[in-house]
């Protein structure tokens, strides 16, 4: 424990004493039981035992405290503004926050660092189930988010985090979104995203960002890192996508934003993504492409493509004169590595690169090696765009028809409130949820051994 941390705990304890002496509101003497064993001082604030609502408990919590929520349906929206608080459900499947299609977010962490949220369900929110914005340090574990109006789990303008053992379904945008960070310093591990518009969306994110050991299925489209000037810190770059199972993302019955309609029927699709590594993923059963590196067309952009790749906190919009803003900005996919994936059953091509003439070269610096696949666009893609070698050959031969994405008609969005999103299955909860001490997200993300991740086995269903 460092000095700063000790001081914080001392202050927290002091405040608790004050609170116990002087606080008569809330009907509870400061709330919770003090785990004063010296080494790991924290208070447990129980809902509804000590506090009637989650928000009241969160507001009362000091840094390092645990808000522990009993099974039940909580019809509230919770904002977290205190650093290093841990919010935990006793039972992942039975501790449920319900927005009743009216409240905006289940749990929203606003500029509070080190907050961990775990072992909870959030459903029926008008915006997002779980939401971190403007934070340094976060963790979401054993979360279930379903039937939410924008995203299941939404992380923007944040860094140093971990999302693990979590599940999202039934959102028109993405089950999981990570946006506007570079370098992100984040890990996503063991996430299942299904029945959403997009399984994963990562707009203008990347840099030390790992998407691993996760399942993306039954969405309109699976994994979609993309660039765009409509949010800050473009382009999307340097996301490592490894060891994921991505299949049957052709679902016409989900809610879906426009991009999900546009990109429907693809497994992993970088839309203007740069320098990503896509490795050892199992990808199958897609109407269009398995792994597709393509453009993101942005109409009426706010900026032009920046000349240099710089961290978010150094990036400033170029804001060129109006006359230099194009009507249509084409973000090409560049310098991505697609290696050792197993890709099959794709309607148009298992592997594809299609930059619509943008990107400066036919291959756009993208490379393909060691993949198991049958079809590619253009043909013989691993020969034409090898990793570690020079591109060669005819990139027009059997080229991926970008127009086929754009001009086809896709089934319209289904309202998220009424879409046939299955109720989530019983999902494994956090071990020892009632008794484990809180672990704030102060040292995130954990290190990850990417080399140890193997190509997934094909699931039985």
């Amino acid at each position, binding site marked *: 424990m460092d000095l700063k941390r000790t001081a914080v705990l001392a202050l927290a304890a002091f405040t608790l004493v004050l609170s116990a002496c002087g606080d008569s509101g809330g009907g509870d003497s400061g709330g919770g039981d003090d785990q004063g064993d010296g080494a790991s001082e924290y208070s447990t604030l129980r809902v509804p035992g000590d506090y009637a609502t989650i928000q009241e408990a969160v507001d009362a919590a000091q840094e390092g405290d645990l808000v522990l929520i009993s099974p039940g349906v909580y019809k509230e929206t919770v904002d977290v503004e205190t650093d290093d608080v841990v919010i935990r459900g006793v039972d992942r499947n039975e501790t449920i926050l319900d927005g009743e299609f009216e409240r905006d977010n289940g749990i929203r962490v606003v500029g509070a660092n080190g907050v961990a949220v775990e072992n909870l369900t959030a459903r029926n929110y*008008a915006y997002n189930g779980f939401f971190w914005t403007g934070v340094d340090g976060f963790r979401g574990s054993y979360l279930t988010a379903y039937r939410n109006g924008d995203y299941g789990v939404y992380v923007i303008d944040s860094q140093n985090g971990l999302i693990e053992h979590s599940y999202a379904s039934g959102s028109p945008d993405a089950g999981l979104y990570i946006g506007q960070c570079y370098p992100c*310093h984040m890990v996503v591990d063991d996430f299942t995203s299904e029945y959403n518009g997009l399984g994963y969306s990562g707009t203008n994110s990347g840099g*030390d960002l790992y998407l691993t050991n996760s399942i993306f299925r039954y969405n309109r489209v699976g994994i979609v890192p993309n660039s765009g000037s409509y949010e800050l810190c473009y382009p999307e770059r340097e996301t490592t996508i490894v060891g994921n199972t991505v299949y049957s993302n052709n679902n016409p019955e989900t809610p879906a*934003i426009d991009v999900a309609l546009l990109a429907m029927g693809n497994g992993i699709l970088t839309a203007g993504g740069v320098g990503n590594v896509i490795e050892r993923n199992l990808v199958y059963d897609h109407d269009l492409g398995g792994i597709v590196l393509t453009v993101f067309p942005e*109409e009426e952009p706010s900026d032009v493509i920046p000349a240099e790749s710089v961290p978010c906190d150094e990036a400033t*919009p170029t804001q060129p004169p109006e006359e230099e803003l194009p009507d249509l900005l084409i973000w090409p996919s560049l310098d991505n590595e697609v290696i050792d994936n197993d890709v099959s059953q794709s309607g148009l091509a298992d592997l594809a690169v299609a930059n619509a003439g943008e990107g400066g070269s036919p291959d756009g610096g993208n490379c393909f090696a060691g993949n198991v696949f049958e079809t590619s666009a253009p043909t013989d893609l691993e020969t034409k765009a090898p990793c570690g070698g020079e591109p060669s050959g005819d990139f027009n031969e059997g080229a991926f028809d970008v127009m086929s994405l754009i001009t086809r*008609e896709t089934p319209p*969005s289904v309202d998220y409130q009424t879409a046939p999103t299955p109720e989530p299955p019983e999902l494994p909860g956090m071990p020892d949820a009632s008794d484990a001490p809180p672990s704030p997200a102060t040292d995130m993300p954990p290190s990850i051994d990417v080399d140890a991740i193997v190509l997934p086995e094909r699931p039985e269903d």
Partner: protein
Amino acid sequence: MDPARTSHRQPRRLPVSIGVWIGVALVPVLALVVRPDPIETTDPGDPAEPVAYAVPNVDLATNTARFVSECGHSHSANNDPILFPGQPGESHFHDFFGNTGTDADSTHATLAEGTTTCQGAADLTAYWAPALFQHGEHVEPLGVHAYYRVAPGTDPESVRAFPEGLMMIAGDATASSPQPTEVVAWSCDRSPVVSAAPQQCPKGAPLSLRVTFPDCWRGGGEANLDSADHRSHVAYGGGEGCPPSHPVAIPQLTLAVRYPIYGPIEGLSLAPGSLLQGHADFFNAWDPAKLENEIGSCLQRGVVCVIPGSTGHHAAFAEDLKDQL
């Protein structure tokens, strides 16, 4: 991949500690408490000369801290509860958004008990704008995006909630020449390119009328929720914070009314008669606790709380791209 990688904590981008936040926030509150209201509540002020407007803050993508209401079109009628209260049918034709019960008799009390077309149920505000016509046909709007941000030049900590029932009008329904685009502008969806006249928009970016409201209030409680001329109780800070006459900083609301109009601009007119007469109205009926919360959580802490989505014009977008690629 980098096997040697460890966690790299970066300095927080916005290092605002709670303690500092509370301390700073108290200062303007105290100032308000001790400051006698220098303005006679019956004084109509000098409304006709709003010399300072919002400074250019048109780029909806890059002004980060915000919360946003996304509200569908509710109904349209010849009503205006600010200009023609209790006089149904007297106004030019308006499109209403947000509160579904807005009519000529609306009060804060009736609005607060109503329902809303906004995505979040806490925003019961009545928003309205003059109806747009094309070749004489009413164009049904797609809806509005109501951006709430900190006005440029304003200390975020000083921003206070709109008082319950605050009424504001922005833009001039009688204008006979182009209005400043800082107040009334046309754009293609979120593009930073704005103009005094409607633009020809591609199909992925619908034509939008963007109206920015005053960001300073006179204060003084219920007597100043409106004013005789409906203008002088609020003012634009003009990029320099709020003037002494209107010392209370409020969120800067930019209302973007989005229309399914793409391509050539032909035969368009606004209800008062001219395309120059863009304006919009705001009658605050936010759930007060929620509004306080959004200001405290999003604006004062400097974070982005909502980015409006893009839904509903995919077919047009696809058609447009087909032409351009």
